[in-house]
């Protein structure tokens, strides 16, 4: 047996005995002081061998013993808190890891709440504020990992990261501010930095060090969701320290590399979000993505395809990071290919939320901006192919934002991929998003180019357009100024020139029959135009004459083709149709519904709808036209009070009653009968969506009519048949139709006649509100549910006695 070890053991055994049994303050103090010799802090030090033996084997025993003695009486054995200081010094000066473990252990073992618990917690707070946590972690950096120490590390790790939770559990309402996560993790960050500093120093001194424990701490803290607190402290400091310092950079890379796989995603996401730009990210991560499979997966798949929560600057620094090094650029090319594929996949377009589609679109454009001509040319065919597929799929969509995304991205991407070719140009209205997307498309400088030291590139790219507009604005302002100066002495007041119209040579028809004849038979285009323009006025002026030919006229108008370029053709035709319909509603409405359900007319509508992205004149006209009809009907309906729309407003008899069913039922009749040219349940889903919306509008207008109940029933059946339609636009139409039914059909009748349908509709609505991929659908479902709730609330007081 080693004599040193046995001597120390004897000494410690005796001391422990005295400490546990003695009630004499002086005796206890002297015993403690003799033990402190082993900690090496006093003037009479024990030999180093004994010190080492003590701290390795006996320190925790002693600590546990003094903790066990802790009580108010015991501390009061000596005046002025001498004993307390002496007692605390063991924890603050001895080996930090053991002290920390004993502290945590005793805190967790103490009855709560108790004197001992509070004392220990306060001591732990002192321990933290004295910076001992750095010592705890530093102690793990120098060691080689044996199985025993791995166990110790594991225990330490759980305690270090879980400290706020454990303390919170024990202390409950007595929790000290130092242990709140928002205070503790920044402190932990500072401590990690101090340890890293020590590591760097010892590496400079030629000593081997391991940062794996730090990586584990980092990883675990991030997994616990504390990225902001921890990295908010770490990243800005590391950004400064790594600038131009290879050693720091290497330590940093190593730090991230050693993060366990299961924590890699949390750490990387935190880093990408906290780093102010691609340069910083590149300094912090190095070529991590090429070394670690997991990191590569996170950076090139998870953050791009599986999540879409990153903001645009974060996305820019992520992709910028991939672009900054030649080893990483192949990953960027690969990512672009996959992104484009996802962007254009018809299933993704249908099922992914719009937010995600925007996210992917932005990512595509940022990738394009980063890649150079040569790289793009190498895979141009592949990219173009998936781009073209995607554009087609997107333009087929019935949701305008999806189409617009398709157009903007296609314009930018084709210009980048095929700079020498003719540029693709779509017509669309600019909005916030398209402007943002187009701003992303400005090419970034290649990484080999002259680098602006430390300057993030993004603001530079962002400023130049502003500069241009300012430059462009100068001369314009000057010109305006000179113009206004010229006009200042202007005394010539123009006369009204509104009568200055295009001149026509042929006479305008004076009778409705003339118009009809001119529209059907005339080869004289000027006469044809004049007839179309005069028609509305003539119809309104002579209703009797119109009624004689109303069916023919309506048929002609429905099938009218734009044979010449005439301004506002759709508007003229629509107004004329409205006039005819109002004049002779019953017959014309039945005819219109039949014609619309027949393939000939709708085929034309569908054909016109397909070529022009962003403008579907004919298809758009269908519901708009109906809305106008209904609007007219409603306006002609005299109401005595005009309250808010909805059931509350209904006071007078609804004159829509007489005609409500004429249009509705024929329209509903044949939606499920496909013909060769036209299949509502197949490709012509856009028309189906319009149909659903139109039926909903009709239903809503039929409030307080006798026919409303049967209309509601039919409409609910229609909705039921189509409720799982894959197109979001159709589903929106169905949902609004449901709302209309709930609003228009009297509640009592709903319950009496359609209880089962209501129940089914309700469960469907609940499903949609929770699970639908489309945000608008969810919103509409929630609204419909609210309406349903209100109905129930209104009925309950009636039914209850």
């Amino acid at each position, binding site marked *: 047996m080693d004599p040193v070890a046995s001597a120390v053991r004897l000494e410690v055994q005796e001391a422990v005995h005295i400490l546990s049994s003695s009630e004499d303050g002086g005796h206890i103090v002297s015993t403690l002081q003799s033990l402190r010799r082993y900690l090496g802090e006093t003037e009479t030090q024990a030999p180093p061998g004994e010190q080492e033996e003590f701290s390795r084997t006996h320190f925790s025993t002693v600590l546990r013993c003094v903790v066990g003695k802790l009580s108010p009486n015991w501390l009061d054995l000596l005046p002025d808190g001498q004993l307390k200081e002496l007692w605390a010094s063991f924890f603050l000066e001895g080996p930090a890891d053991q002290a920390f473990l004993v502290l945590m252990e005793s805190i967790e073992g103490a009855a709560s709440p108790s004197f001992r618990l509070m004392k220990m917690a306060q001591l732990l707070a002192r321990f933290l504020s004295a910076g001992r946590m750095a010592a705890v972690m530093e102690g793990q950096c120098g060691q080689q990992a044996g199985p025993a120490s791995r166990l110790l590390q594991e225990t330490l790790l759980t305690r270090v990261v879980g400290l706020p939770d454990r303390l919170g559990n024990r202390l409950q309402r007595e929790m000290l501010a130092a242990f709140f996560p928002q205070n503790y993790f920044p402190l932990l960050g500072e401590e990690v930095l101090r340890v890293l500093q020590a590591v760097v120093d010892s590496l400079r001194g030629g000593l081997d060090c391991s940062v794996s424990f730090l990586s584990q701490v980092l990883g675990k803290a991030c997994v616990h969701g504390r990225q902001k607190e921890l990295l908010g402290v770490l990243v800005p400091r590391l950004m400064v320290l790594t600038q131009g310092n290879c050693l720091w950079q290497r330590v940093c890379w190593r730090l991230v590399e050693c993060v366990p796989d299961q924590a890699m995603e949390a750490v990387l996401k935190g880093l990408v979000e906290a780093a102010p730009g691609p340069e910083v990210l590149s300094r912090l991560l190095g070529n991590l993505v090429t070394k670690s499979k997991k990191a590569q997966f996170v950076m090139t798949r998870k953050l791009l395809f599986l999540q879409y929560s990153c903001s645009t600057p974060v996305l820019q620094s992520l992709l910028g990071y991939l672009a900054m090094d030649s080893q990483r650029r192949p990953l960027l090319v690969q990512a672009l290919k996959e992104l484009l594929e996802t962007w254009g996949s018809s299933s993704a377009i249908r099922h992914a939320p719009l937010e995600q589609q925007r996210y992917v679109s932005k990512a595509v454009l940022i990738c394009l901006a980063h890649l150079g001509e040569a790289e793009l040319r190498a895979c141009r065919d592949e990219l173009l192919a998936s781009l073209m597929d995607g554009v087609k799929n997107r333009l087929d969509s019935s949701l305008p934002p999806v189409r617009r995304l398709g157009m903007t991205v296609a314009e930018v991407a084709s210009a980048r991929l095929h700079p020498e070719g003719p540029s693709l140009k779509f017509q669309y209205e600019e909005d916030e998003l398209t402007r943002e997307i187009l701003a992303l498309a400005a090419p970034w400088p290649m990484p080999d180019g002259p680098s602006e030291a430390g300057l993030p590139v993004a603001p530079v790219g962002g400023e130049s357009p502003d500069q241009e507009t300012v430059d462009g604005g100068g001369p314009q302002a000057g*010109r305006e100024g000179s113009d206004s100066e*010229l006009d200042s002495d*202007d005394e*010539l007041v123009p*006369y009204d*020139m509104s*009568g*200055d119209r*295009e*001149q026509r040579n042929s006479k305008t028809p004076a009778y409705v029959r003339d118009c009809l004849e001119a529209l059907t038979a005339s080869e004289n285009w000027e006469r044809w135009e004049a007839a179309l323009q005069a028609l509305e006025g003539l119809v309104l002026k002579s209703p009797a004459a119109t009624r004689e030919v109303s069916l023919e006229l309506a048929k002609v108008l429905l099938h009218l083709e734009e044979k010449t370029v005439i301004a506002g053709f759709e508007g003229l035709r629509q107004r004329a149709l409205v006039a005819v319909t109002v004049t002779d509603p019953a017959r014309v409405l039945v005819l219109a519904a039949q014609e619309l359900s027949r393939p000939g007319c709708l085929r034309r509508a569908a054909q016109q709808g397909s070529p022009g992205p962003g403008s579907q004149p004919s298809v758009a006209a269908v519901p708009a036209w109906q809305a106008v009809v209904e609007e007219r009907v409603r306006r002609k309906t005299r109401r005595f009070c005009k309250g808010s729309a909805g059931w509350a407003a209904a006071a007078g008899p609804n004159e829509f009653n007489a005609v409500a069913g004429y249009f509705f039922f024929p329209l509903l009749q044949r939606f499920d009968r496909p013909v060769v040219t036209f299949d509502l349940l197949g490709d012509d889903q856009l028309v189906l969506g319009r149909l659903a919306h139109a039926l909903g509008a009709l239903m809503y207008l039929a409030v307080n009519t006798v026919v409303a109940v049967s209309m509601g029933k039919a409409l609910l059946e229609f909705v039921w048949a189509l409720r799982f339609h894959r197109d979001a636009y159709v589903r929106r139409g169905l949902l609004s139709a449901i709302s209309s039914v709930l609003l228009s059909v009297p509640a009592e009748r709903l319950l009496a006649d359609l209880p089962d349908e209501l129940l089914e509709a309700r469960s469907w609505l609940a499903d949609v509100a929770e699970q639908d991929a489309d945000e608008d659908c969810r919103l509409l479902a929630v609204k419909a549910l609210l309406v349903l709730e209100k109905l129930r609330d209104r009925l309950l007081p009636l039914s209850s006695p």
Partner: protein
Amino acid sequence: MAAPAPPPPDPQFVLRGAHSAVHALHFCDGAEGRPLLLSGSLRGLVHVWSLETRRPLTALDGHGGQCVTWLHTLPRGPQLLSQGRDLQLCTWDLAEGRNAVVDAVRLESMGFCRASVLAEGPQRWMVAVPGRGNDEVQVLELPSKTSVSCLKPEAGARLGMPMCLQLWQAESSSRPLLLAGYEDGSLALWDVSTRKVCSRVACHSEPVMGLALDPRRARGVSGSAEKALAVWSLEGQQALQRGPGSPSPGRWASTHLGLTNPGIADVKIRPDSKILATAGWDHRVRVFQWRTMRPLAVLAFHSATVHCVAFDTAGLLAAGSGDQRISVWSLYPPT
């Protein structure tokens, strides 16, 4: 806020009795300073209208029933120049109630081109008329009727027939210049004495039907069969320039001013350079502010093509139309 625009104006009075389409109009001072209006008709008559009684005083018949296309008075006498489709340029003596043709020049061209006259000195005038060749312009001296020069474009120019002419002498120089609009839509500036084209610019894609020049500003306007007016400038009398597209600075915001309907038969600028009137094939007379080319009024009175417009020094505007009427308007009276 701007007040609502006043309703379109009505003509001050209308002269009826020409009994055929009116193709030429000219204001002049008659005996004792009484204002007269001369009109040339499709049937070859020149009517002299009194603006006080608003009745025709006389009808001069000197063109053998052929359309009178251009009228101008010379201060001596007064003497009247009239151009007709019978290929005669007649000089009339109207003094003291006389109305006889005192002289006639035989023209060589059957074209639509109206003549232009420039006072060269006391009792000496220079008149530009379409010449013998298809694309020539001949410049004569009156009353001697001698040919001063013949302006013929160089061989490959392919300008087509001259369509409208404007003789002009800048204040600073003694060299007479001729501005000519051609069938191909271009304008050419000729130096009459050297018989050279100073500059040329393609203003229109259709034949130039009428042009008017504001000599003080060296700026003019032309109309064609197109749906637009062209505004151009002559700088340094050497270059014919249009709009801001030219290298030297131009103040005009736009070269072309779009119209609602195509076809301009005549353009005139009021002597005080405030406003400008166009005669339109669309039966309408359009009035613009000359300096800014801001549209001021559209006069929709006539029911047939308006062939000609004329201003008098007092600011009256007359328009002659295919509906056989002459409308007289008083717009924006000069101050």
